[in-house]
């Protein structure tokens, strides 16, 4: 097994590749920021990474099934239990909940309480557009740090998680829609930071910095 934090290089961020759509965007955006981001299919490689990104596009049921089939579910649970900086994007965020109305009977990972619900009736689905975030009053967010009060980000989704204590930002689309969550080092976005231009890259840079900080702290006790 290779060691994730090689001396001199940036820590490895595993972008979990479980056989669904476009994962290249997240990988390329992180690499653009100087991170050592790699598409990872092997659970053993995933588990030693200093940071983990769970992307996801398409249907909840199919993604949940593909993730289980890949054997990477254990790596996700392990990373979350250990406090590895973690970022779920779009359906990758939804998978962290207990389930989704999109796929009744299919279990999510249950790392976050609540289920994923359909967007309000009367609006076009998917929400496929840029929208502006509304910060949750009183909440600080390391993910959103330095991106302004109401940054514009790109959404493509028909479902979104239920509101909860972990929510750091919402957007308005036929009602208040959960857009970003943060609980310690578990971060998630219903929008696509890798497709949200400069402001999205700034958010991913916050994630890369968090990964570096945690990897640095765990690598330096001997110093």
């Amino acid at each position, binding site marked *: 097994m290779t060691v994730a934090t090689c001396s001199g290089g940036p820590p490895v961020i595993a972008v979990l590749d479980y056989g669904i759509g476009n994962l290249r965007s997240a990988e390329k955006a992180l690499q653009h920021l100087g991170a050592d981001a790699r598409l990872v299919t092997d659970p053993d490689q995933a588990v030693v990474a200093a940071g983990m990104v769970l992307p996801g596009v398409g249907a909840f049921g199919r993604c949940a099934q593909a993730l289980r089939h890949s054997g990477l579910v254990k790596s996700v649970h392990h990373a979350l239990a250990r406090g590895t900086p973690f970022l779920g994007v779009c359906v990758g965020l939804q998978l962290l909940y207990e389930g989704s109305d999109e796929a009744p009977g299919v279990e999510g990972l249950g790392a976050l309480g609540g289920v994923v619900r359909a967007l309000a009736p009367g609006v076009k689905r*998917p929400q496929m*557009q840029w929208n502006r975030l509304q910060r949750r009053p009183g909440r600080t967010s390391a993910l959103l740090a330095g991106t302004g009060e109401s940054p*514009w980000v790109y959404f493509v989704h028909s479902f979104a998680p239920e509101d909860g204590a972990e929510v750091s930002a919402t957007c308005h689309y036929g009602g208040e829609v959960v857009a970003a969550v943060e609980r310690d080092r578990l971060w998630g976005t219903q929008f696509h930071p890798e497709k949200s231009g400069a402001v999205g890259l700034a958010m991913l840079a916050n994630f890369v910095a968090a990964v570096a900080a945690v990897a640095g702290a765990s690598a330096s006790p001997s110093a």
Partner: protein
Amino acid sequence: MRCIRVIPCLDVDAGRVVKGVQFAGLVDAGDPVELAARYDAEGADELVFLDITASVDARRTMVEVVARTAEQVFIPFTVGGGVGDVDAARALLRAGADKVSLNTAALAHPNLVARLAGEFGAQCVVVAIDARRRAGAGARWDVYSHGGRRPAGRDALAWAEQAAALGAGEILLTSMDRDGTRSGYDLELTRAVAGTVAVPVVASGGVGSLEHLVQGARQGDADAVLAASIFHRGEHTLAEAKAYMADHGVPVRPVGPAG
């Protein structure tokens, strides 16, 4: 809140942008990646690459363009033109395209739409419809395939409805009557399709002024407005387009730092 997307469209032939794009300060105005990055920086909400390459061999070039674009452009982009089967779509998506746009192949094999939506998700499957008003038939439009050269024997509204039912996540609707005329979108067509399908509709064909973009959103009820020449020729910047739209009551993502 609904926010209208503004989408520049680039025609690409064998890996090079054609139809003369004019941009000050570009090293090479024919490089699609350089242009895409420029439009991203200027505030485009999304981009469409239309591959007009005739040769099958040269199509591989488009995958390379997509891969290079994905390294430098961090807004969504769609690739269309000649996507004929699941493998071609997969190659483009794996290279980093966010959506693939199907036209002739979807008409020939409607099930291809369903297969792609099943494998990659509806959000990355666009069905492009080239429509022409049926002479003497009022508000009826016929669908054309093969780059507008062959009648497909279908009604545009019925095909849009079927495509959405099969799993298309978006309809890219081009009026052949208006394309290249700079006289504005076919607003009646746009409005009719937008009222027929529940998925987003991108208006295309005919933009010659910023007012046309406003019309596409307000009278056409489009979710996104696509244009080529007004941006390529340097007649208007994305910032001007969005400022004009906002001034005329169309919600858009403002250009510039977080607004």
